[in-house]
């Protein structure tokens, strides 16, 4: 494995301010396919199944990049290769100029993966004791340990419960503790694997706000987050990489990619799903009707529309509906389901 751009005659050096903290170039990984005993006996060395295929991406300091894809898309494997837990078959990956294979020990000093679940905490110890343990593993001095444990607990809002046994924590608190554990070493790169998977929607929203404000904005970490939640990727990240079957299906700034892939889908809650003005909007090409379904007591309907032209066009559509006397209880922008988004991404890349 060779070092990428930040090398001078093979000697790693600290990247410049503009250089990406994470650089992945044509990374490739295949695993042996799970097979029946009969197949193994017939052909002991079957062809491996590619899990990550020619993936390239850069992440800069202070940037939040989302890896969006369904289960089995290769997101976690990619993060684990960057975390030095899995060795790539081909391609290069460098973190702060250090190669993830040949300089794995140096990489571990600058990254903080949050890949493991809350089961990776000592549930019978307090939050503080858990952090003190990892401070020792990170080789912090006693003084550093005391101040950083306090800081980390403070940042994730667990200072008051620092002496409470972790087994008594809620899922959200444990998730915060995992992030606090990752922050102890003052990492430059954070790798987060579905960090809100065990949180309820409210806790997930507040946790996402925390991640964005604390990690990217204040600490200037480069953050790579794997998720299968469309709204999480587009709400949280500066840039989104859509992965499917190990390949990058689409990539771009979250705002523009969201617009391109999801179209502009809006949902209208109305009493008159077949009102003439709705039909007129469709025939005039100002909106495309996607679906309509009855909601709640059966009186109200949710009508999904695709409206090109951004928020201004959506505002015009709403104005037309209201001025025509259509009862509108709610009108909001919605995210497309992940499957649909990936189909569009694949279609888009095929057309290019």
């Amino acid at each position, binding site marked *: 494995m060779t070092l990428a751009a930040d090398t001078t005659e093979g000697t790693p050096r600290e990247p410049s301010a503009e250089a990406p903290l994470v650089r992945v170039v044509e990374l490739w990984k295949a695993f042996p396919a799970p097979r029946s005993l009969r197949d193994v006996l017939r052909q002991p060395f079957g062809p491996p199944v590619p899990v990550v295929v020619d993936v390239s991406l850069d992440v800069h300091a202070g940037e939040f990049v989302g890896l969006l894809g369904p289960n089995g898309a290769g997101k976690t494997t990619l993060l684990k290769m960057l975390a030095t*837990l899995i060795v790539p078959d081909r391609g290069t990956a460098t973190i702060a100029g250090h190669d993830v294979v040949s300089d794995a020990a140096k990489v571990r000093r600058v990254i903080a993966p949050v*890949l493991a679940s809350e089961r*990776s905490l000592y549930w019978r*110890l307090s939050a503080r*004791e858990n952090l003190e343990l990892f401070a*020792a593993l990170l080789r912090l001095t006693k003084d550093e340990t005391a101040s950083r444990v306090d800081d980390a607990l403070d940042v994730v809002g667990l200072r008051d419960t620092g002496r409470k046994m972790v087994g008594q924590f809620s899922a959200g608190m444990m998730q915060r503790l995992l992030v606090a*554990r990752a922050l102890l*070493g003052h990492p430059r790169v954070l790798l987060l694997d579905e960090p809100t998977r065990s949180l309820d929607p409210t806790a997930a929203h507040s946790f996402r706000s925390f991640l964005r404000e604390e990690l990217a904005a204040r600490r200037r970490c480069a953050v790579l987050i794997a998720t299968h939640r469309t709204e999480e990727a587009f709400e949280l990240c500066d840039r989104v990489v859509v992965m499917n079957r190990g390949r990058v299906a689409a990539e771009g700034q979250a705002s523009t990619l969201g617009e391109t892939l999801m179209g502009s889908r809006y949902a209208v809650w109305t009493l008159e799903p077949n009102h003439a003005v709705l039909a007129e909007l469709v025939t005039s090409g100002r909106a495309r009707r996607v679906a309509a379904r009855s909601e709640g007591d059966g009186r109200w309907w949710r009508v999904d529309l695709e409206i090109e032209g951004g928020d201004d066009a959506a505002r015009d559509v709403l104005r037309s509906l209201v001025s025509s006397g259509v009862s509108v209880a709610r009108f909001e922008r919605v995210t497309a389901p992940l499957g649909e988004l990936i189909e569009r991404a694949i279609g888009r890349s095929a057309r290019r």
Partner: protein
Amino acid sequence: MSMRAAAALTRASWRTAKSYRVSFVLSFVSLLVTIVPVYFVATALQPFMASVIAEEGREYFGFVLLGTALLALVATALSSFAASVNGGLGSGFFEALLVTPTPLSSLLLGQTGYAFVWAFARVILLFVVGIWLGVDVHWLRLPEALLITVAAVAAHAGLGLIAAALVVSFRTNATLPQGLVAVSTILAGVYFPTSVLPPVLARFAEWLPLTPALRALRQSLLLGFPMSAIAADLARLVALAAVCVAVGTLALRWAFSYARRSGSLSQY
């Protein structure tokens, strides 16, 4: 090797064990409850066993006590590495450890440290009770006894590393630790000397690290033999330990390298 990291992991395991107070106290009580009946059975069998064990001790209770104590230590050495790796891989804790800058050797030492400390504590308690019940120990031979114990534990730790390597590579230890403990219990002279075994089994037993370890330990502590008298057994034990540790270390290194390539180090 980072001893501070290893100590921190050991301390965390100790705090966890200590938090289960009832279980913690009961494990000591169960040890006492077990050893007292052994004392009475051994005393009853003393007239029959005296001549059989003559080369390794005079009192059968002392003979069994040393056998049981060393077996407890080597069983820990055999099983704790694989158990800790297996549990850590399953919970994801090992993954969290492996991405820290702490070397693998310190992580393994720390993850198993508490099991060893606990086993030593139980052995010391066994000895205290044994001496209270009348076991005659040659205290001047304590340095030799410690050397034998360390070599025996090292040899079995090497085999334990091989079991851990199997877990890392194939997610099973192929019952290697349990099998070795069973074979050693029957053939290595824990409850009776190997001289009573059929010649074929007795010859095989000499390849088990526990066999020379137990013989040398009993001869030095129970009979007061000097180093020169146990040198052959000690040399055999040290050689076995060197081979087992070397093979175990290489196997574990290979296993982690294989696991990083095959992805079996973590779930995928």
